[in-house]
């Protein structure tokens, strides 16, 4: 039994199933991070004292990470665009770069976290540190998830390209939408936590 519109688009909606699915998923993700950002605001305005982010956190490292993530979004688009032009070899390169840049982000994050642990800055010290760990930690889980999907599409998942290139391209596009979202969350997190 075939599920209709997994690859081809439905005439009256102009979309395939996966595309609607990923946008709905992103809508729920917006609500998740939206609730956390709202909590941040409520905690901050209710606090008797709240440090400026740059006095505690490492702004240069985070700036570097911002550049890394934005670059990875570019390579993600290039990966998808190569597939649209049916250039599988080029896709492989860009997709690998996307995953690697995600890895660079995690390594930088590791150094940031271990510096905080080293200085004894743990969630119980203050709500600022606690919300920093909560927000960046949850974002990091999303980075790892996105990397896992992208690595799968680079490796074993790419077999689909041989049998159904269009379906495979759609999958890469949806993975890309998620990756851009993860990038976007960071672009909000960076000023909120580090600069303001």
């Amino acid at each position, binding site marked *: *039994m075939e599920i209709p519109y*997994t690859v081809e688009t439905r005439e009256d909606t102009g979309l395939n*199933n996966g595309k*609607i*699915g990923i946008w709905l998923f992103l809508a729920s*993700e917006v609500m998740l991070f939206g*609730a956390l950002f709202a909590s941040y605001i409520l905690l901050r305005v209710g606090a008797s004292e709240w440090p400026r982010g740059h006095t505690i956190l490492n702004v240069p490292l985070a700036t570097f990470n911002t550049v890394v993530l934005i670059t990875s979004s570019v390579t993600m688009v290039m990966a998808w665009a190569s597939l649209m032009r049916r250039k599988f070899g080029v896709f492989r390169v860009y997709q690998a770069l996307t995953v690697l840049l995600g890895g660079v982000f995690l390594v930088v994050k590791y150094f940031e976290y271990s510096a905080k642990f080293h200085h004894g800055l743990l969630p*119980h010290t203050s709500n600022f540190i606690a919300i920093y760990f909560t927000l960046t930690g949850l974002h990091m889980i999303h980075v790892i998830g996105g990397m896992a999907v992208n690595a799968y599409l680079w490796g074993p998942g790419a077999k689909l390209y041989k049998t159904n290139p269009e379906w495979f391209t759609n999958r890469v596009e949806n993975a890309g939408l998620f990756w851009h979202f993860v990038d976007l969350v960071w672009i909000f997190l960076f000023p909120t936590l580090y600069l303001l």
Partner: protein
Amino acid sequence: MATTKTAPGHDVHAAHAGHHEEPGFFKKYVFSTDHKVIGIQYAVTGLLFLLFGFSLMMLMRWQLAYPGQAVGWLGKLLGDNRMPGGVMLPEFYNELGAMHGTIMVFLGVVPLAVGGFGNFVLPLQIGAPDMAFPKINMMSYQCYFLGGVTMLGSFFIPAGGAAQSGWTSYPPLANIAGSGQTWWLIGMIFLITSSLLGSINFIVTTIQLRAPGLTFMRFPIFVWAQFVTSFLLLLAFPPLEAAGVLQLMDRVGGSSFFMPSGLVVSGQVAANAGGGNPLLWQHLFWFLAHPEVYVLILPGMGIVAEVIANNTRKPLWGYRSMVYALGFLGFMSFIVWAHHMFMTGMGTVMSTFFQTTTMIISIPSVVILTALILSLWGGSIRFTTPMLFALGFLPMFGIGGLTGLPLGLSVTDIPLHDTYYVIGHFHYVVAPGTLFALMAGIYYWYPKATGRMMNDFLGKLHFWGSFVFMNVLFMPMFFLGLAGVSRRLYDGGASYQFAQPALHYNVISSWGAWMLAVAQIPFIINFFMSLKTGRKVGPNPWDATTLEWAAPSPPPHGNFEHPPEAYRGPYEYSVPGHGSDFQPQFERA
């Protein structure tokens, strides 16, 4: 032109078997991706959890009616750390209360209404071969199952047992409670994941896999109800997930998101840094939990609409108004949450805003209920078992809704807040309201799922027993609440002088609960007996009009013999000039 109305089931099975080899037991019943199997998995698990949650409540009702009286055999059964010598410990009572609420809402009613009926009926009603993402559908059930196992497992934690801070888990109490609360949070994260996966699937399926000709305004009301419900689940659950993550951080990571400065616990200043805000949890929690109320009721309303149209043999009154009301209800449900928080001191401006939106949201509910009642007018009503439950739903939900108005107004909420009146109010909405609708759905779609009718006599016995004892159980709660008895008392108010004249209502209510359990026995017998002995039926035993009745009973893998097409609206009953009193959507003129 030949119609697609009759679909002899045997040919389909034969043709089907020719294409595929039969999958093994595990593939067919445990790791199935077929929406019908998943729907039945959800429904059966949900029913078992309902029974379990009800059992917890029956234990509590003993303590409330006869506080401190020993029941020897229960003491032996449940052990000395719960009921030493048969007398219930306060901690165990708190566990029962928290887990009754959690289990009934998140593991019982919603999985049955959305997971069960949504999965089984929705794809059939829109003429789809399956859900849009069958594997994600399977994962959704598995996440639900794991969440359920986590919640059940928490009862057996050696130190302290299950969560004890109510189904609302208000901090700071929940922050400093025993380890059961951590398990509760982990279980909730599983359940939230499950409903996220499910709701995406429902929305995509509804938009994309509609049969040709089935425009949105030809949807059965049940499909509309599930569609709106899915949006509520999709958008309202993530804030609770956020709240759950924050509370986990508080409990495991030692942060103080919900811990105010200078909190004193058992005479000691709490070791946290402080600076947190307990009200933040309430806002995040109720941002989910008020839409959740509509998640509980909308599928029920959808089922009642189907059953009423079918059994009055006339079109629903005000189909369009109902659709618009459903959409408006869904939207409004996101901006009423703080009416649960009038007594938190959040300020009169906030209270005024939320009492206004609360009064506004009662309008679409009334529109839907009125449309359903007016649909009865002039119909030639068939008093089948599903119809009895649907008719029972109308006044019971009406009582539940009307008693909610004094709670939604911030002034009258002051004396009623946190009394038994509140318990009476929302149980009238959910128990004889939603649960009656779900029972109507079980009796209505059982022949579609199994190919056999349920026994009518046992069904009617079930209905009348449930109808009477639901009221014996819940009506006294209004009186107790108006007498001022708090809902949170371990002894049901026995230690309070002012509560003495009302205490006998506890006894009436408890006997109502136990008799209600007895009234479910005919249903349980009927459910299993009819699998073997029920009257065999064809595709359309109720002479109904919607698309699910075009498929054979039970529908094979892939559902329909021929892909169905919708030629008209969903409720074309008693059309003047037509030969029979119903004209199915799938029948060409």
